[in-house]
């Protein structure tokens, strides 16, 4: 196969207006595709578009070049309205070599009619193996209706710089800026922000490359994409879910984050390590996951609620301490940014398989609160709620985020800081005569904390069974009562919650139930199915322990209820699988238990967020009569 010609003859430019478009930039690791994508996403948000971006991350830091597994990049879904999820498939890809493009093709990430812009130097490379690889890739890609446009990235960049490896990403950015009609002043401003730690010479070179890409596109590309801005009048901020969790922790008034590095949770602590001290807080990097829990619990025990942040394998290690905190009623906030599992699993990829581990990991009866933010905005606010609940209910509050929220970036209404979000100052007044360590209200199980420094309140907290005075007590009556009191708190919390709102009609053929980061994709799928005339609604849960109230009543108004989750379930059509032995999605099992409703599930573990289009197909398939009207 011969290489496509490098330069298109300039033709009349066609402007394609669309409600949304998904673009991705993909390269070998270290070539700067992510930086290019971040700037493009930020500029799009600043221009008023709805935006959702996701990172395309290889598992290794420096995988070998030109291999499909090494694909690294950034995918941006740009919309005329707010965008709540990563969408279905990429409409336009800009690739630095054909192998990473192949990876995206094989993953099914590219729309069948996608436009693929690809560096074409490989087609005529001096290495025959590379030329052969190029040809093979082009043959494989030709099976689709892709439009492939070769781009002489390196050849163009060499007219300006000696090492195009350090700048092709800015050329690509300029190209995309032309195609998507981005405001070049805003692009330059964002380059300035992205490279603020570099010299002005770096900025100047980058801007020159940007212009080069822009001009090349103007002369050679025959179409432009027009995604009009959304009419958003409020102030927005744009960040990823881990940044939102970190800033939310600050907003909540917590002062100590104890952690141990683990993907994809660690970046919460990166943000905090930079700024937390200005807020009177510190990040303690402990010697291991267990110690991180221990330091947080020690700090919480002696004062303000502290928190720890981890992912699945770290959660497994912390469970003994979690049971201890529940037993001794020491407040603690624990963030689990879920990834694929079990074991090391898929460290950089999304999954919702930790729900049961979050609920039940600790041996013994250890009731505690589990909340899952559904959006990046909620990642911020959930921390304020979590801190407050931990304090009020004297227990562990687990926050279940995931890799999709952690690395997704989207704009949301700017929080307006409120000093009331923060904890009250510590009460160090002497305790009243005879006040005990756990004066359980016999109805609610709630009690006030007595922390060190309070005269007259001395006692020893213990993981052993204990009475109100924290005295070790092995008698069955005391253990029964204390266990009841610790459990009662969850029911009390549930009584304070409101039933979740139903998205769509409050009755119908099918109700989809989701939790966590899938909200945007589920609601988009439900809306699409509804616009086709299907009778489907959805409910999204934030509280998993206790569950939000009123679920049974909501479920009973639908002919069928089905969860959509990113975890594993058996398919009834698989060998050996039947209604009795079928392993179901974790939320589905939880809901069946709580409501006695025959809740079905549709779950997948693809190592990527669910696509609204796939969910829509599943919805239709689960409708009575296969959705036939």
């Amino acid at each position: 196969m011969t290489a496509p010609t490098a330069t298109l003859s300039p033709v009349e430019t066609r402007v394609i207006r669309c409600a949304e478009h998904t673009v991705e930039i993909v390269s070998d690791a270290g070539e700067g595709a992510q930086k290019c994508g971040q700037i493009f996403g930020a500029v799009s948000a600043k221009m008023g578009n709805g935006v959702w971006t996701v990172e395309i991350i290889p598992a290794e830091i420096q995988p070998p070049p030109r291999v499909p597994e090494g694909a690294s990049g950034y995918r941006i879904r740009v919309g005329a309205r707010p965008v709540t999820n990563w969408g279905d498939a990429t409409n336009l890809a800009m690739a630095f070599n054909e192998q990473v493009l192949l990876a995206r093709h094989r993953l099914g990430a590219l729309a069948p009619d996608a436009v693929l812009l690809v560096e074409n130097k490989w087609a005529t490379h001096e290495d025959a193996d590379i030329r052969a690889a190029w040809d093979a890739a082009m043959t494989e890609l030709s099976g689709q209706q892709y439009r492939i446009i070769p781009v002489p990235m390196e050849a163009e960049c060499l007219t300006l710089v000696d090492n195009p490896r350090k700048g092709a990403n800015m050329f690509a950015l300029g190209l995309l800026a032309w195609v998507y009609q981005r405001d070049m002043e805003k692009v330059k401003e964002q380059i300035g922000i992205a490279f603020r730690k570099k010299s002005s010479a770096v900025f100047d070179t980058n801007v020159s490359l940007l212009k080069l890409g822009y001009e090349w596109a103007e002369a050679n590309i025959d179409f432009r994409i027009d995604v009009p801005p959304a009419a958003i009048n409020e102030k927005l901020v744009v960040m990823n879910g881990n940044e939102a969790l970190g800033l939310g922790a600050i907003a909540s008034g917590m002062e100590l984050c104890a952690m141990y590095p683990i993907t994809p949770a660690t970046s919460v602590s990166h943000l905090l390590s930079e700024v937390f001290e200005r807020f009177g807080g510190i990040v303690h990097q402990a010697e291991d996951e267990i110690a991180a829990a221990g330091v947080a619990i020690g700090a919480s025990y002696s004062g303000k609620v502290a928190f720890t942040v981890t992912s699945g394998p770290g959660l497994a290690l912390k469970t003994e301490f979690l049971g201890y905190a529940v037993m001794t009623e020491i407040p603690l906030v624990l963030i689990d940014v879920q990834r694929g599992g079990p074991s090391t699993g898929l460290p950089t990829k999304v999954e919702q398989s930790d729900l049961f581990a979050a609920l039940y990991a600790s041996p013994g009866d250890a009731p505690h609160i589990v909340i899952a933010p559904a959006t990046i905005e909620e990642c911020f606010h959930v921390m304020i709620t979590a801190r407050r609940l931990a304090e009020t209910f004297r227990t562990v509050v687990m926050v279940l985020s995931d890799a999709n929220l952690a690395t997704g970036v989207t704009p949301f209404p700017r929080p307006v800081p409120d000093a009331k979000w923060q904890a009250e100052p510590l009460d160090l007044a002497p305790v009243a005569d005879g006040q005990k360590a756990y004066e359980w209200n016999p109805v609610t199980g709630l009690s006030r904390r007595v922390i060190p420094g309070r005269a007259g309140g001395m006692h020893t907290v213990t993981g052993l069974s204990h009475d109100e005075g924290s005295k070790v007590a092995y008698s069955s009556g005391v253990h029964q009562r204390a266990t009841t009191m610790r459990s009662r708190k969850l029911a009390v919390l549930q009584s304070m919650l409101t039933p979740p709102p139903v998205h769509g009609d409050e009755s119908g053929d099918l109700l989809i139930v989701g939790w966590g980061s899938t909200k945007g994709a589920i609601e988009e799928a439900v809306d699409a199915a509804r616009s086709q005339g299907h009778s489907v609604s959805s409910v999204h849960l934030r509280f998993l322990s206790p569950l939000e109230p009123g679920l049974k009543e909501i479920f009973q108004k639908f002919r069928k209820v089905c969860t959509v989750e990113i975890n594993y379930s058996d398919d009834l059509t698989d060998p050996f699988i039947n209604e009795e032995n079928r392993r179901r999605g974790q939320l589905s099992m939880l809901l069946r238990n709580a409501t006695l409703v025959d809740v079905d599930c549709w779950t997948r573990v693809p190592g990527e967020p669910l696509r609204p289009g796939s969910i829509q197909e599943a919805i239709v398939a689960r409708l009575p009569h296969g959705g036939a009207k």
Partner: protein
Amino acid sequence: MSSCGLLPVLDLDEDVPSYELNDYEGARARWCPGCGDHSVLTAVQRLLAAEQLKPEQTVFVSGIGCSSRFPHYLKTYGFHGIHGRALPVATGIRLHRPDLHVFVVMGDGDCTSIGAAHWLHALRYNPDMVVMMLDNAIYGLTKNQTSPTTPQGFKSNTQPKGSWLPSLNPLQVALGVTNASFVAQTAEWVPSHLYATLRAAHAHRGLSFVRILQRCPIFSSSVYQSAVQDPKKIGLLVHDDGVVVPDLEKVYTTQVAHDPRDIDAARRVADMTDRIHLGVFFRDPTRLRYEEVRRVVPRTPDERMRELDVELDKYAV
């Protein structure tokens, strides 16, 4: 971290009551008769009274095991935690509440086996606290299993033919950790030395690691028996900067002049197996203390919200 804004409380010391020994007494100790832990408890109560530490400003943190019941028997704040994890908890307390006096009590299994990683790292963090490792060379509460400090050949329920390997020397380990600042050894059957060592440990600023040789009358009574009966098997480390117990030097006539500032000499003495050495092996009060390194300026809620506004602006669209 002084960010709780607690430090002003320290100045409110007008009507300081005077505390007697029994002001520190908690629940009645339920260790076996003859257990060395009783002796340590007495020495600690003497120390608390001598230093007039406020019970409400004092926290004892322990793990799991016989000796970890310690906090229950004191009338201070106590944290009877989980097996091996006392040190991270104590570190968390010191980070958040540097106004509190923190003591840690662990057994040999707790400290040198299941909690070994925390032991090394706590020594390096060097927070200001007294860490007592009550070493009876056996797992007692779980009924007679070999611990890392069990002497080679000593029979237990898990190694009935005798401990397979030479015992771990906790002093060598502690003296090998970067930034460790205080390492001492004492024995519960020498109460005056025990008390003097604990006072020196408390006076030291930084993590004071004290290995306390402690007899278990049920499972490992023979381990220290010869040293208990024969004072010649004990060598006292003597130095003006160490533990000075004048009367004791009449009983324990083997004395080793040892300057606790000399880490190389300390390691040499720790390596010696001819006799048990009691005293301060090493002390360096100039070593970095983690909670001081990490100290930050406390902020009011309003200050924080103003700063948060600045931070959010960085993400503004």
